[in-house]
């Protein structure tokens, strides 16, 4: 799978951005010496990239997140050293953006630098099993709202359609039609379809570019 120096993950609220961003960082670490992941989520103080700090550190991936992340201080603060990933072009960088257009406002502050360098991918994470994006049309609407707020256009789609731990192979296959339709409506390619690692091996070429997710956030 090809990649750019900077990969941004954005999408509708609860679409699975953080989980994918962390897994993608681990994937890129197999190819690159220096990988940095940045948590730009100012919307949700509960689930953060910093939840995976241990795994990331163990893999040698640098995490840049707000000093308030996971401190339970409910402040929508941005990490001060985000600019370092834009200045230091020797590192491969992943940006985890907060959900919806509200989350993408944080991006607007860095978009000039990202666009100037012009070595980025802006990925839209799509889960058709989320209640407010049940089809391509509603997802496209969210896509446009995020582009307006974040001032960067998407370059590809990540189909992360899932029903959590109860996801079946059939659920994933059933989502392909909507994802293809979104691809058609937006004119953007589907970069990958993400499935949990235990499901990934059950496919026999029905879906292109399957990206297995190793780490899953789990609570009770």
């Amino acid at each position, binding site marked *: 799978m090809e990649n750019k120096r900077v990969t941004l993950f954005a999408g509708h609220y*609860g679409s699975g951005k953080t989980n994918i961003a962390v897994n993608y960082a681990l994937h890129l670490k197999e190819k690159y010496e220096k990988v940095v992941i940045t948590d730009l989520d100012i919307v949700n103080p*509960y689930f953060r990239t910093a939840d995976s700090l241990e795994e990331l550190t163990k893999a040698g991936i640098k995490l840049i997140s707000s000093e308030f992340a996971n401190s339970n201080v409910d402040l929508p603060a941005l990490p001060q050293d985000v600019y370092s990933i834009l200045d230091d072009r020797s590192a491969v960088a992943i940006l985890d953006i907060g959900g919806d257009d509200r989350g993408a406002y944080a991006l607007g502050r860095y978009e000039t630098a990202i666009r100037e360098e012009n070595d980025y991918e802006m990925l839209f994470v799509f889960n058709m099993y989320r*209640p407010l994006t049940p089809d391509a049309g509603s997802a496209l609407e969210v896509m446009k709202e995020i582009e307006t707020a974040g001032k960067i256009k998407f370059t590809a789609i990540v189909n992360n359609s899932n029903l959590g731990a109860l996801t079946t192979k059939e659920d994933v296959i059933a989502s392909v039609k909507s994802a293809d339709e979104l691809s058609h409506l937006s004119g953007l390619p589907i970069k990958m379809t993400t499935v949990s690692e235990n499901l990934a091996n059950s496919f026999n070429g029905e879906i292109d570019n399957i990206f297995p997710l190793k780490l899953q956030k789990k609570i*009770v």
Partner: protein
Amino acid sequence: MGEKVLMKGNEAIAEAAIRAGCLHYFGYPITPQTEIAAYMAKRMPKVGGVFLQAESEIAAINMVLGVAAAGKRVMTSSSSPGVSLKSEGMSYISGSDVPALVVNVQRGGPGLGGIQPSQSDYFQAVKGGSHGDYKRIVLAPASVQEMASLTTKAFDLADKYSILTMILADGTMGQMMEPVELETTEPVKYEKPWATTGTKMQRKHNIVNSLYLKPEELEKKNFERFAKYKTIEENEVMYEEYLMDDAEICVVSFGITSRVAKNAIVEARAKGIKVGMIRPITLWPFPTEVLNKAADKCKAFISVEMNMGQMIEDVKLAIECKKPVHLCCRVGGMIPSPEEVLAKIEEVNEGGER
């Protein structure tokens, strides 16, 4: 029921409310329940409903009273400190005998506390929290599916008895994502001849009020209200029994801690310990009878809660001191682990703890 969707607990409450015909939401943001308001803000304009972010929790609850008096389904939601602010308005709603739903997605306290999950508003929810003699129906969901189905139930019970109902959830329940099947049937409609909907000059005007200056009248009103509460206690108790048939130890737990307890019970059973659980789904009316019966068979009870021991008092009252009741708790935003609950089960099984 329709297709499965992947939802956060908070979103499930909001969507279920809209599907139950609640087209009026008034609230004020607070972690960890803000998704309810955010979801309502997105959806209400699309379904012809009203989302209004009030200037405060106090304003929001009084708007709820207004809509309830007009006979429309209405709700507000908050988290612990915000619910305290709503307490006065909630008493007015109880004193006016109008139906409404208040959701509390609890966080650690007292005071501003923290933003992590807790069950420390149990007393506030079922014992008082507002002034005056009153009861409210309190429902405690233990899955995202129940966040949706008990919201539907809460609106039906509210209308059926003209009473304030409450969903008592916690930060974990609000934030966790699980597949949900949403209600697709039309909501049940209840007649509300008392509603202040305008007389059209064809009837005497209705008055919704909680002020009764004559003590005889106010006493009568309280007696009537408590007769209604008795009917609710007789008819609306909900609970889940888990592996209770041969249980010698009975775990009592609601909401998120009941899920932790279930895991611990499975492990304890594997070790040959006969343990089961009674999970109250209605915290008021409390499942007194089933617990009392269990006390004739079980040797001990363990109340698993995320507070310093609140529901344990109702368990003790229910079983009339027949058997010892032990507490297993974490507080302040901490969630007990299955290992901690298992350790307590083993300890009680060996008769170790008092």
